[in-house]
């Protein structure tokens, strides 16, 4: 399938080039985000009836993992409200072009942090506390507040969106999985960029800000670090930036060789499996251990969690590929072949999310009518009884997602294997075993 340039359509082009449609969405999102924080802090402590839990961890998560990431890649980052206050503070403006002289420290992020290891750590931190985070509104409120202020703080110290690029726990995996999405932002003609004076897409101009994600669009080959902020569309004087519709997982044809990204794939894959066991499984002791933060059982849970992600899963994967004959170093092979786990992990998350989103979606209606738990009935749905939805299609949909993910991974494995010139069989076998375990956990 050839690429289709969406920005050829005048409506889309104008909507992206103008600052106002995105700004309108930003403001709505920011208001919703602030309301979610307040609902978490002052609303009912009963998670299933609190706006912050229901709209963040059920509604938003469903949209993110079932729609936004698979189909729009970093589409969520394009409208995420978290960096906004910090960014406005950093610029000293909302719409006006930036001053020549920075208002704050405007430092470069140190080289040692210019990777996604911090994002891996921040995701794991949330993951280890997830049982409490997903059920306790006040904790959700605190985490949302912390993220907002972390973004503000980093904006005053570092240039551009340092929080989004290097610390956001969500941004890391969105970037990883956005490689599989059928949307991309790319340049049309490389030569135009080479000869372009001043590189306003990166450095900014009177038409807009330099790339907020610290990416030079002329060198974009994959979605991972492009946050779809659309500034380059506004600043490019040559109209050389395009948003394209493309085949799924186009970026994975040339797999990354970075270890931070490779381990991100293992973290996400392992987390989906552990969540499936803890949150959806029948093991009460496991749930208790995950929930009782600080107890000895929780520390055992943390140890097992980290052992699976950093030990068992990568070690078995390595054992599978270590004997494959290749002149390419093992580390390189490991990182490249781990791209196979991207579609698999994404579909693991889709299958897992289907289960708990459909189980808990009916809470959305109740929370919509009484978001703070004050006894309101704004839309007449406050007394909607909890009822799992679409239960008859859940198991088939999950099976389809998991088996589809396996096939997708197998196809990716073949491409990645060709790149590093090894057999894809061990990796496909590895994916098959993990898919079988996930099927057992979910069905």
């Amino acid at each position: 399938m050839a690429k289709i340039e969406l920005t050829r359509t005048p409506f889309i082009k104008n909507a992206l080039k103008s600052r106002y449609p995105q700004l309108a969405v930003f403001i709505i999102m920011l208001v919703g985000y602030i309301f979610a924080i307040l609902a978490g802090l002052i609303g009912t402590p009963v998670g299933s009836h609190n706006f912050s839990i229901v709209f963040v961890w059920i509604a938003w998560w469903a949209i993110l993992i079932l729609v936004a990431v698979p189909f729009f890649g970093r589409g969520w980052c394009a409208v995420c409200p978290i960096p906004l206050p910090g960014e406005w503070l950093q610029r000293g403006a909302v719409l006006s072009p930036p001053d020549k002289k920075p208002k704050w420290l405007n430092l470069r992020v140190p080289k040692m942090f210019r990777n996604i290891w911090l994002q891996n750590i921040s995701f794991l931190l949330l993951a280890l506390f997830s049982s409490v985070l997903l059920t306790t509104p006040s904790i959700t409120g605190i985490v949302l507040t912390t993220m907002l202020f972390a973004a503000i703080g980093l904006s005053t110290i570092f240039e551009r969106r340092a929080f989004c690029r290097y610390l956001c726990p969500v941004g890391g995996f969105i970037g990883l999985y956005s490689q599989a999405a059928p949307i991309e932002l790319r340049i049309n003609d490389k030569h135009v960029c080479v000869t372009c004076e001043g590189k306003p897409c990166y450095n900014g101009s009177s038409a807009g800000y330099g790339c907020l994600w610290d990416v030079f669009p002329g060198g974009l080959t994959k979605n991972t670090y492009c946050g779809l902020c659309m500034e380059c569309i506004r600043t490019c004087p040559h109209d050389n930036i395009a948003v394209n519709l493309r085949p799924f997982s186009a970026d994975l044809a040339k797999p990354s060789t970075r270890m931070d990204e490779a381990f991100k794939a293992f973290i996400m894959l392992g987390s989906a499996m552990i969540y499936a066991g803890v949150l959806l499984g029948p093991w009460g002791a496991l749930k208790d251990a995950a929930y009782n933060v600080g107890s000895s059982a929780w520390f055992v849970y943390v140890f097992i969690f980290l052992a699976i992600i950093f030990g068992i899963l990568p070690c078995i994967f390595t054992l599978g590929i270590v004997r494959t004959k290749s002149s390419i170093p093992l580390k390189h092979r490991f990182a490249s072949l781990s791209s196979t786990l991207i579609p698999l992990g994404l579909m693991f998350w889709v299958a897992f999310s289907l289960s708990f989103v459909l189980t808990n979606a009916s809470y959305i209606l109740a929370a919509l009518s009484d978001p703070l738990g004050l006894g309101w009935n704004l839309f007449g749905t406050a007394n909607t009884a909890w009822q799992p939805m679409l239960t008859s299609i859940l198991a088939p949909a999950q099976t389809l997602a998991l088996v589809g993910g396996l096939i997708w991974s197998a196809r990716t494995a073949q491409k990645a294997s060709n790149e590093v010139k090894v057999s894809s069989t061990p990796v496909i076998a590895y994916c098959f075993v993990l898919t079988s375990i996930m099927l057992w956990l979910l069905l």
Partner: protein
Amino acid sequence: MKRPELLTRILITVAIVGAVGAPLYVWSHSPLIHAQMSENGGWSPDILRAEVGKPLHLKLTSDDVMHGFAVGQMNMDAVDVEPGKVTEVTLTFDKPGIYTFFCTRWCGLNHWRMRGTIEVSGSPSEPEPATLPLYVTLNLDIDAPHDARVIPSGQPSAMRGQELATDLPVDLSAEYYRSHSPYQVFRDMPNTALTDSQRWDVVAYLWQSNTTKESLINGQKLYAQNCAACHGENGAGDGVFADDLKAAGDASAQTMTGAQAMKMQTPANFTDPTRMLGASPALLQGKILRGGMGTGMPMWGSIFTEDQIRDLVAYIYSFQFKYPK
């Protein structure tokens, strides 16, 4: 500053102030009474104020599990207080005083501690004379051991006792019944040709003749709602919280030691004839009214009316005696 920038800043400021201010405003103007398990704080607030004759409108919500709400000494049906939902109740008091509101659902081990007070002010139309409970006027030490020295070999039958009692000078009066334990009645029964078993049947008849079916049904309902969690559905002291109470008793710093300390936290077994046949209705009334003083048995005097306690006592004896269906 350019006009669009200024307008956008104003718009964003208004949006953020609104997003913060509006929820805070409505939240601060919507007082709720929060219910939590006792371990987490119980009712909040736990002291309410009202005036005689003026409706008191309450909005209740639970922050954890299902709770219930009722006010003692009032003729009201308990309402459920569900997690995350708001239940509204309107109360009107016709007498001043301090009323106790309490949880009516078995919400946790310390469920019975979930209580609060409503201080109702206003002038009473007529001051009511206070009457002392019977156990006080009888000067009973309700904490003293009261075991029956003789117990029946089987469950005494009020039906058999009725046939036997016709020829005996048995005092069936309420005064006699309330102030004597079954064992005392058995012991004091005039010397007859009856066997011990037959004499216990007569005792059972005396207890049955001092209650009604309605009273037993009401007592059973009250027992199921308020007592069975600890004392068990069948009165054997094996309710769902019994083990936890025992564990709590073992763990607590009791001043008593050994078997006595264990007994401190073990719910009474109403099927134990030694214990129950040695207790008079006045003594049981006292235990319910005052509570068990450190045993974990709550004080019900501020919650149950005199009639309700009478019904409960009558029902508790039904674990010992066989009454007609």
